[in-house]
């Protein structure tokens, strides 16, 4: 093969990919060259000198290209006079290195000794102790004893909060700049920097609030020492005491692969709790990164105070705690009386197995309507048609490729996608962002197009008519991915937008192949799973319009999401609620049944790239909570609708038999792992952290209809009437904030300082007209609710529209764009 080259490591020949970094190449060949500053995901900087090796090259005759031989017939090697850093070298044909000579050993020993001159003897209390590259490399390559005078050791501040979430221990930092480079190169939030020089050099944050980034936790993972610790895990446990359980992030459509580090805890009655959440390598999904919401948003799994602990049923006017048996009998009785007028609304945190049992139950009782919650994003069927092809990896996008992001604030909706597309942009991909207002993604865009929110559903018309050059660049790209959100559109508008996006892709032939197609920022972890199992937002609309007698509300916070819910729920006779939380019960709820969170049971989600991924049981149940599928299955048995089922894996087998998209998928297939590059998270921990290793499975991507040559046709775009504001009204555009007050996030108290107070962003011109100044309290009446929030007059909203983030106050913001009154409160 032409793209491999022959290199020699310690006199053995290896074929490695041409141009690969030497450290990585050696690692593939089984030779771990020690590193501190080098990280396979980042550009080498050659700062620490730990990777020194003897290096030379085989001499060839310039004219003939023949290898020159010495007197003994061995190839002539020209050695560099001094040791070279392996991390700044890319392999080329005939490269020769030696890693086991006395000079190399001496160099490694010297570097370690040098680093330790100002490192504290802190291992017993250090969070990294036990999985620390500096510890390991000192044991392996360091001098046995120190020649330094202890009293000369630096004494620095050991508790410097860089922000609310990350603490710096100044003594421990070895100044490798991995954290700074991560923030700059990978996250794109350039908020860390070196301050001063030499022995006074320190890491500082230059943002306000400190360390203002949604990816800050990753720096603690890649820090080769314990200099950076997270507020969540600080002193939580020693690494060797933790049990790693593979799981999937329950918060967004990326489906980040995570590892839950579990340990028993006295404060929680001796139960196992999540001590920390670490990324688990899946190069196609989240590589080795996770957002801070994924990392710090797990506390609801253990929060006995907010979780519903036992079933509740309403008898007369009272809501009573009861046993499962009574509760199920009671619910079954209600269902029997419904005479087939049964429907369900399921949230996007329900696993595929839960949704399957819910569907079996509702259809078994003669119901038909299966609603997906929240009913904001349409077009999951189109993602199933022309979604990104099997084998898509956003990490492959680069020069010649293009990404179009439309109607989404990607950083707030799916931060990991935003991180990966930022890097695609750095690699040369064309990134086009279309929205009604500026978003963070604009910083990483080649072209930004702002449209009038009233025309959001017609964004693609605008693109083609008024931005022909950009449209041509997109259609002419080698690969094209479109990521669509639903900001500024209602459900009908969302459908029109998605259909236009699908048509755009089909027309230009960017479907049915890897790295081409449609993705959508469905809220929650299982938006695509809802679609595949038959739950649609259109059915939800129908349920709202014609409420059934008995309604299941499963893991959906209707009242917090939708101001109109209170009124239409009144028309439902019986509500059976499956819920994690002991919140105020939905008015009229007949039975509230406690279900288990993702950490308490097995299950699977389908992410926005249609990858089915499974999560494993990590902790025991809270209270008497059961997996939702089990509750529903027991109800079904009670009603004589089926046999009792014992495990989630059996349900997956059933799903695979009945739903073609899941054909062939089993828990075993989902647990399959293959070696991934870069080789991180192995027994060596040079690359930081031990939890990266993926032992839980890479998941299986469901093929899109267009994959494997499937024919897809364009559909008709039914553009709804534009939503206009008239008579002094303004358009109220609900938007998503990553850190908010949703129930699943409310228990994560450490992030509270970062959750913004409820606000609305207004344009200066509109504010002036209404006599509102920055910081004033304003009252917004729209979509059946009235909110009092603070006005931010700061250029974040276009004229004629206000941006109202959802889930920041207890009063729900409207579900979709609508016209509303804004006035000074």
């Amino acid at each position: 093969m032409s793209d491999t080259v022959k290199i020699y490591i310690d006199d053995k020949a290896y074929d490695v990919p041409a141009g690969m970094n030497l450290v990585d190449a050696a690692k593939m060949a089984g030779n771990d060259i020690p590193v501190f500053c080098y990280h396979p995901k980042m550009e080498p900087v050659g700062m620490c000198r730990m990777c020194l090796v003897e290096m030379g090259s085989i001499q060839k005759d310039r004219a003939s290209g023949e290898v020159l031989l010495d007197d003994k017939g061995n190839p002539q090697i020209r050695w560099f006079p001094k040791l070279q850093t392996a991390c700044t070298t890319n392999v080329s044909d005939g490269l020769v290195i030696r890693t086991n000579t006395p000079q190399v050993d001496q160099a490694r020993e010297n570097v370690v000794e040098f680093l330790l001159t100002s490192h504290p003897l802190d291992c017993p209390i250090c969070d990294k102790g036990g999985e620390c590259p500096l510890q390991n490399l000192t044991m392996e390559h360091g001098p046995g004893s120190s020649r330094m005078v202890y009293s000369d050791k630096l004494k620095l501040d050991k508790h410097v909060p860089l922000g609310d979430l990350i603490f710096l221990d100044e003594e421990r930092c070895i100044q490798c700049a991995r954290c700074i480079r991560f923030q700059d190169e990978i996250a794109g939030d350039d908020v860390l920097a070196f301050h001063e020089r030499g022995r006074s050099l320190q890491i500082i944050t230059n943002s306000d609030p400190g360390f203002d980034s949604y990816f800050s936790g990753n720096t603690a993972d890649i820090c080769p020492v314990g200099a950076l610790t997270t507020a969540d895990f600080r002193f939580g446990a020693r690494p060797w005491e933790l049990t790693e359980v593979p799981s999937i992030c329950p918060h967004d459509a990326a489906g980040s692969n995570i590892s839950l580090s579990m340990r028993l805890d006295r404060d929680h009655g001796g139960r196992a709790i999540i001590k920390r959440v670490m990324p688990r390598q899946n190069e196609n999904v989240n590589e080795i990164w996770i957002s801070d919401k994924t990392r710090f948003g797990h506390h609801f799994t253990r929060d006995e105070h907010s979780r519903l602990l036992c079933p509740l049923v309403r008898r007369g006017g009272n809501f009573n705690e009861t046993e499962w048996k009574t509760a199920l009998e009671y619910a079954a009785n209600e269902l029997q009386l419904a005479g087939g007028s049964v429907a369900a609304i399921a949230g996007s945190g329900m696993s595929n197995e839960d949704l399957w049992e819910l569907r079996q139950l509702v259809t078994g009782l003669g119901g038909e309507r299966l609603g997906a919650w929240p009913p904001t994003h349409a077009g999951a069927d189109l993602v199933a048609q022309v979604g990104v092809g099997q084998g898509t990896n956003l990490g492959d996008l680069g020069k010649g490729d293009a990404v179009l992001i439309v109607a989404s604030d990607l950083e707030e909706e799916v931060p990991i996608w935003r991180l990966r597309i930022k890097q695609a942009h750095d690699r040369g991909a064309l990134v086009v962002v279309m929205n009604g207002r500026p978003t963070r993604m604009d910083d990483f865009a080649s072209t930004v197009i702002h449209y009038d929110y009233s025309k959001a559903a017609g964004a693609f018309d605008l693109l083609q008519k008024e931005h022909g050059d950009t449209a041509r660049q997109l259609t002419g790209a080698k690969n094209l991915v479109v990521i669509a959100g639903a900001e500024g559109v209602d459900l009908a508008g969302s459908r029109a937008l998605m259909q236009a996006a699908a048509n755009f892709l089909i027309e230009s032939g960017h479907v049915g192949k890897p790295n081409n197609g449609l993705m959508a920022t469905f809220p929650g972890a299982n938006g695509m799973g809802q679609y595949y199992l038959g739950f649609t937002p259109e059915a939800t609309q129908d349920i709202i319009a014609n409420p059934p007698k008995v309604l299941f509300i499963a893991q959906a916070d209707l009242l917090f999401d939708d101001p109109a819910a209170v009124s239409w729920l009144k028309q439902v006779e019986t509500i059976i609620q499956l819920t994690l939380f002991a919140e105020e019960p939905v008015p009229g709820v007949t039975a509230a049944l406690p279900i288990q969170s993702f950490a308490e049971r097995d299950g699977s989600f389908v992410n926005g790239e249609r990858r089915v991924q499974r999560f494993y049981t990590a902790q025991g149940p809270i209270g008497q909570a059961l997996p939702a599928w089990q509750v529903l299955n027991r109800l079904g048995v009670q009603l004589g609708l089926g046999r009792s089922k014992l495990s989630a894996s059996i349900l997956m087998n059933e799903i695979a038999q009945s739903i073609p998209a899941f054909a062939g998928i089993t828990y075993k297939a989902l647990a399959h792992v293959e070696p991934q590059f870069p080789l991180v998270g192995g027994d060596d921990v040079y690359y930081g952290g031990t939890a990266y290793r993926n032992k839980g499975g890479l998941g299986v991507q469901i093929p899109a209809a267009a994959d494997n040559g499937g024919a897809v046709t364009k559909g008709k775009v039914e553009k709804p009437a534009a939503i206009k504001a008239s008579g002094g009204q303004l358009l109220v555009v609900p938007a998503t904030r990553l850190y908010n007050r949703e129930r699943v996030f409310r228990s994560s108290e450490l992030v509270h300082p970062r959750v913004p107070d409820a606000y609305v962003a207004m344009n200066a011109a509109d504010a002036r007209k209404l006599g509102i100044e920055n910081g004033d309290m304003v009252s917004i009446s729209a979509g059946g609710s009235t909110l009092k929030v603070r006005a931010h007059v700061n250029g974040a909203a276009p004229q004629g529209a206000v941006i109202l983030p959802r889930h920041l106050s207890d009063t729900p913001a409207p579900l979709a764009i609508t016209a509303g009154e804004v006035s000074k409160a």
Partner: protein
Amino acid sequence: MNVLRGFATTFKHILEEPVTIQYPEQSIEFQERYKGRHELHRYENGLEKCIGCALCAAACPADAIWVEAAENTDEVRFSPGERYAKTYEINMMRCIYCGYCEDACPTEAIVLGHEHRLSFTSRSEAIFTKDVLLVEAPEGTQATPQRVRPGTFDRSIPDMEDPL
């Protein structure tokens, strides 16, 4: 003949000092190295030596020790430095009195003392918690947690002496 030799042995020992004592009225001298019940020690200023590092738990071959750590502040300080043991328990039914925990401890906090009279009537009683294991604060010092002048105790592990 053999019978006589046997009796001779018996009679020889009759005249020797007895090795048994009248316990509990009498007690023996313990060797310094005797390994009895554990104690968690304090510094002279009353702060706890234990920093919650759980190295004792890692060293314990019987998995008898359970440590949970938390963070000190200058207002609520248990031990020098940032970390202290919030929970410290030893299950005396599992312990084999090997003393590995004592060897592992970086601050000489856990020490096997001379107390050997251990009795319990239930399994949970056999789990000795931190308040049982921790020795009294020395005369004139305040028991933990203490409120201290900010910045006085920022080292978890006492500074090492130079080897020379």
